[in-house]
């Protein structure tokens, strides 16, 4: 692996403010190929805002985002996703009135050659256990399955970096296990990486290689799961005494 591929995504001194509120402040982080990187923090810490900035849905107020060796233009969603950075949204990251099959196919349209799309849809559906439901209308599925559809859409785009915003909310234990298995499988091929925002601590601690904790938009801590779980600042601000290990 070449030197510049050492980091897939590099976020340098990124800030984003909304009027008087600084949602993200001087954020630095780096995601390397093959890893699952957790981004956690209290509600309103700036995680989704960070997603919006790196995926180009929002322009940063200042700072620089580099993906796969190229600097991304701020505020242009197309640039990031075409380069292979695909993100999901915290809510409703699928098309309600469309079949599951067409939803997943949507994911393939920009990045997969026409001939391979059908196979790719199948593959993503199989991975997430949606094969039975391909002809259902996504909006009629129970909440948990809708989440799986969102993940399938983004996986079908075969991104180099998959950014998932709370993919596990509303999933039951079995489904969480499925998703974690899928994510683990995904990063193992081709040096793909995953950037994960999630409040399900059990899952985060289980799957992440490294974790970065935000608080009020600022860096609070980083490290491997064990370090984070025992960091008193993190326990205080986020995990709560009861959830500390």
């Amino acid at each position, binding site marked *: 692996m070449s030197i510049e591929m050492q980091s897939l995504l590099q976020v340098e001194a990124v800030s984003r403010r*909304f009027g008087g509120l600084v949602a993200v402040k001087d954020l630095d982080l780096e995601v390397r190929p093959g890893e699952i990187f957790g981004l956690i*923090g*209290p*509600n*309103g*810490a700036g*995680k*989704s*805002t960070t997603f919006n900035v790196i995926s180009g849905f929002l322009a940063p107020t200042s700072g620089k985002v580099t993906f796969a060796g190229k600097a991304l233009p701020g505020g242009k969603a197309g640039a990031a996703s075409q380069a292979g950075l695909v993100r999901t949204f*915290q*809510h409703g990251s699928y098309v309600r009135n469309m079949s599951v099959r067409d939803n997943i196919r949507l994911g393939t349209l920009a990045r997969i050659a026409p001939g391979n799309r059908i196979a790719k849809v199948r593959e993503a559906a199989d991975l997430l256990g949606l094969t039975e439901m391909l002809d259902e209308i996504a909006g*009629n*599925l*129970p*909440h*948990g*399955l809708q989440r799986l559809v969102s993940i399938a859409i983004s996986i079908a785009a075969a991104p180099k970096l998959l950014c998932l915003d*709370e993919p596990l*909310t*509303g*999933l*039951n*234990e*079995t*489904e969480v*296990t499925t998703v974690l298995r899928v994510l683990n499988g995904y990063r193992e091929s081709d040096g793909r990486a995953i950037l994960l925002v999630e*409040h399900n*601590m059990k899952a985060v601690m289980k799957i992440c290689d490294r974790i970065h904790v935000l608080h009020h938009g600022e860096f609070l801590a980083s490290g491997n799961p064990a370090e984070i779980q025992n960091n008193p600042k993190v326990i205080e*601000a*986020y*995990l*709560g005494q*009861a*959830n500390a290990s």
Partner: protein
Amino acid sequence: MPLDAPTLEISGLDAGYGTVPVLHDVAITVERGSVVTLIGANGAGKSTLIKVIGGLIQSTAGSVSFNGADCTRSRPDQMVRAGLGIVPEGRRLFGEMTLRENLELGAYARTDRQQVAKDFDRVLELFPELRDRLSTHAKSFSGGQQQMVAIARALMGAPKLLLLDEPTIGLAPVVVDRVAALIQEISEFGVDILLIEQNAEVALTIADFGYVLENGRVVMADNAKALLVNPEVRLAYLGV
């Protein structure tokens, strides 16, 4: 109102979407002074049940009675006036309105102004992270913050019965603990609660009584403590 009547009594309920049936012959009771939880897999019909109780979906058979009065055909606003509070799936905030306005609307059906003002302060104490953001539009809040607003808004209605559809979705672990404590606290103040939670462990710990819903049918009904140790439940919903 007959004092001995349970807060909520549902029997023989069938409901669905268009021609697709979802709930079959569901019977559920929320006794006075209790926290009742509903657990079940994705798609079991939990949210659908909440919508039926709230009056957003009409049942095709069966009856719902609230505080002893029949309200099978009531509209949501009538239910709310009768003392129901709802934290719906998907939060359903008024995105273009400020936090303050959202909370004020939560108290729309109330006339006791002074008490409303007190409750306003109280919910802000519960979620201090919202305190400084009263004039922020609801849609600008983060996912978890919005969930807090939804809970706060429902509390502003001073309900007698609170329906909570996955209230802790998207909340940070510390806040989940806070909400769990809150549920127990308000229950002690005389608000009855019907709770849906994906995290069955938490739900059953808080609750007094639990129902297990499978494919739109109630398949188990027991004390929460009993369900918590029930091997079938543990296997299916607690992942152990």
